[in-house]
């Protein structure tokens, strides 16, 4: 039995000393007992089973978290990132050399405040690498994170993982606490908007710390006429788009802000846009917004009016409330994102036009393309232009590495190479 006392997993923190002490305990836990990805997955699998849909109600991301934590999801990821023997912490052979993943130590996590399950997702990446996790919980996510962590405690009777976790709740403006956290870690996973990311990157990390940054970016959707013009599949495509827009209130880096529709002779996009409108109405009935900042309402109203005043060829579809908005026009430029379920739908003559204009700001390209050869070419072009994820519409938020062009587990492990001296 370990000499380390179990501490509460989620705590409100008010002094740098509390963070420093927690990091010392976590580092000791990593040093005392090695865990393999398989050990972590055993706990995750039990944890996933405990996340009852009824108990967590409509909390965003819970269905996805349940799926993410399953062995069936994680094993292929481990195999790809850590090698075929990585699951059990074994050595992988590469010619005359062998490689094995070792934890970097304590990994600090700075999740974005707009993705409810991100503190958990980020933490699991580090734990799969055998690390300990020191997580700052954004103030708006404390309650949900606490409830999820309570379930982990129940699922991890032997404290295999829970003794490697400390979740700290503190205001993001507490520079002293942010610095203490940065100074205490060996790796960092930083998620969020531009301002947050720049502030955290500027913290005094040790020179050896590995730093992975995710965000800020935006995402784009595109469809060819073969996809949007197929009446049998129209509703299904529209439902997929609506779901991609609805998740995270369109504030995630993987949220589509614009949908490009490639025109086709004799096929009007009007029916597709009408179907999309119905899909938005249905999604809104199923997942109505519970609250909204006044600033977002104001921005949505401004986006609607600006769009329609700017060009008389522009159209828009929206209810009286700020629930959702479809702005319809033509052109291949990406408009300024509004968020808040405001999707700009633009007709283009050829999808190569807008995709040629993409750059590294675009994280995900969600596609609905009927012609596989065309999709290959578009994917190649998008990759060259800086896009890191090209996925089917409806799967834009599916959190599978590589994410932002990076692995999720491997950056926070040391791949130790051993070439035998006897060979």
């Amino acid at each position, binding site marked *: 039995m370990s000499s380390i006392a179990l501490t509460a997993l989620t705590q409100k923190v008010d002094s740098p000393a509390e963070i420093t002490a927690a990091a010392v305990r976590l580092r000791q836990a990593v040093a005392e007992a090695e865990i393999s990805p398989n050990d972590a997955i055993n706990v995750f699998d039990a944890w996933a089973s405990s996340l009852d849909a009824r108990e967590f109600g409509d909390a965003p991301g819970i269905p996805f978290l349940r799926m993410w934590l399953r062995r069936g999801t994680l094993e292929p990821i481990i195999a790809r990132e850590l090698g075929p023997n990585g699951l059990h912490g074994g050595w992988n052979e590469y010619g005359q050399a062998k490689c094995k993943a070792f934890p970097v130590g304590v990994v600090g996590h700075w999740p974005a405040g707009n993705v409810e399950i991100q503190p958990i997702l980020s933490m699991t990446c580090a734990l799969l690498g055998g690390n300990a996790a020191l997580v700052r919980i954004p103030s708006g996510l404390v309650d949900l994170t606490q409830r999820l962590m309570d379930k982990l405690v129940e699922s991890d009777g032997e404290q295999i993982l829970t003794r490697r976790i400390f979740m700290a709740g503190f205001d993001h403006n507490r520079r002293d606490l942010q610095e203490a956290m940065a100074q205490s870690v060996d790796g960092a996973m930083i998620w969020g908007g531009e301002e947050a990311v720049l502030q955290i990157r500027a913290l005094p990390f040790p020179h050896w710390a590995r730093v992975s940054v995710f965000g800020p970016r935006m995402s784009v959707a595109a469809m060819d006429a073969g996809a949007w013009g197929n009446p049998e599949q129209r509703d299904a495509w529209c439902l997929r788009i609506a779901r991609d827009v609805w998740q995270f209130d369109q*504030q995630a880096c993987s949220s589509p802000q614009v949908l490009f529709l490639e025109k086709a002779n004799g096929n009007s996009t009007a029916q597709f846009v009408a179907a999309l409108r119905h899909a938005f109405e249905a999604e809104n009935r199923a997942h109505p917004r519970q609250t909204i*900042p006044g600033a977002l309402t104001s921005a949505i109203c401004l986006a609607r009016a600006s769009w329609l005043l700017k060009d008389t060829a522009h159209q828009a579809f929206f209810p009286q409330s700020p629930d959702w908005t479809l702005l319809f026009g033509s052109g291949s430029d990406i408009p300024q994102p509004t968020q808040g379920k405001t999707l700009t739908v633009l007709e283009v003559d050829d999808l190569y036009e807008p995709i040629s204009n993409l750059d590294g*700001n675009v994280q995900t390209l969600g596609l609905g393309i009927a012609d596989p050869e065309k999709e290959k070419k578009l994917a190649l072009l998008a990759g060259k232009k800086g896009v890191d994820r090209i996925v089917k519409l409806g799967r834009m938020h599916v959190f599978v590495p590589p994410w932002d062009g990076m692995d999720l587990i491997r950056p926070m492990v040391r791949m130790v190479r051993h070439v035998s001296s006897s060979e």
Partner: protein
Amino acid sequence: MQQFEDKVESLLSMPPYGQPPEEKQAGLLEILKSELDYACQRHEGYRNYVQNWPLDYQSATHVADLPFLPVGLLKADPPLSLVDVGEIKRTLTSSATTSQSPSRVVLDSPTARRMTKGVVTIVRDFIGSERRPYLVVDTPDFRGSSSGMGARGAAIQGLQPFANGITCCLGVDKQGELTLDQDRLKDFAKDREDIEVLVYGFTFILWNHLVKPLMADGVRLNLPKARILHSGGWKRLQDQAVEKNEFNQQLARTFGCSPDRIIDFYGMVETVGVIYPDCSEGNKHGPAFGDVIVRDPLTLQPVAEGEYGIVQVCSVLPTSFPGHLLLTEDRAQVIAYDGCACGRRGISFRFAGRIPKTELRGCGNLQVNRSPVN
């Protein structure tokens, strides 16, 4: 158009706060619909906006159902206009203290005339109609030019119909800072303890450039019959932690009058001709020729009594720009939809500051025009 002018004129001529709410709503609805017709004829972009509005405004039964325009659109350059360039007599510009781009509204002669009448009608209800000496706590330059004017100039000029002489008591020093001309101020106050005088200044200017220097010098004026009006908001006094009550007490002490002779009013250049003074209960009201709707940010429907929301202002006065139905960037609380103890009919409300600045949130908060990678 003459029929429209007649209707507006009749609203400007009646007591501004005497109509029962239902009666007022019906009258406003009819005029605002005709203004929407007019604006749609004059501006094709605006027509496109109205045509895409989820409800047909012609069949609307409530003012709250009419298509409103976010006030941010009035920051357009060139300004949104419903008249030909040759008809524009003056362009008003907001102070733009909380945003980088000022609003610009264009006035033709009819709109400017209605604007003046609107302000007079409202202010008269609060301070009476007689003319009196007018002390402007600002510089003479801020009275504005004939073609362009800022919010301070518009407010100063709007009160001129109540003046029989104007004194400006601020100057500008070599560093460009406002300075109080105490001699001029004392001259103004001399021998006027028994007569009504009118005083106007922006809230922060009154505090920083009149109250504070006079308090520091231990100077008190003897103007017990002063009516002190101020506007411009409290944002610039927040850093000094100056609350409204303290402001009123110190200002009243400086002038030697009672605090109840101080009236804080809300006005924006975008709501030409309609200002919102505090009543004796500390509430604000909409006049006969305009109204206020406080909308729930979640539904954009009017909030219930006691609740907070985003302020929409309505006015029948402007026809030179589409400013008759404007969603502002301010918050307010509805106190009651009728029955304020001050006796004024219709909605009573209190402003609750600006909506926090709009910004994109989360890991998708990319400004696409900023950081191209490739």
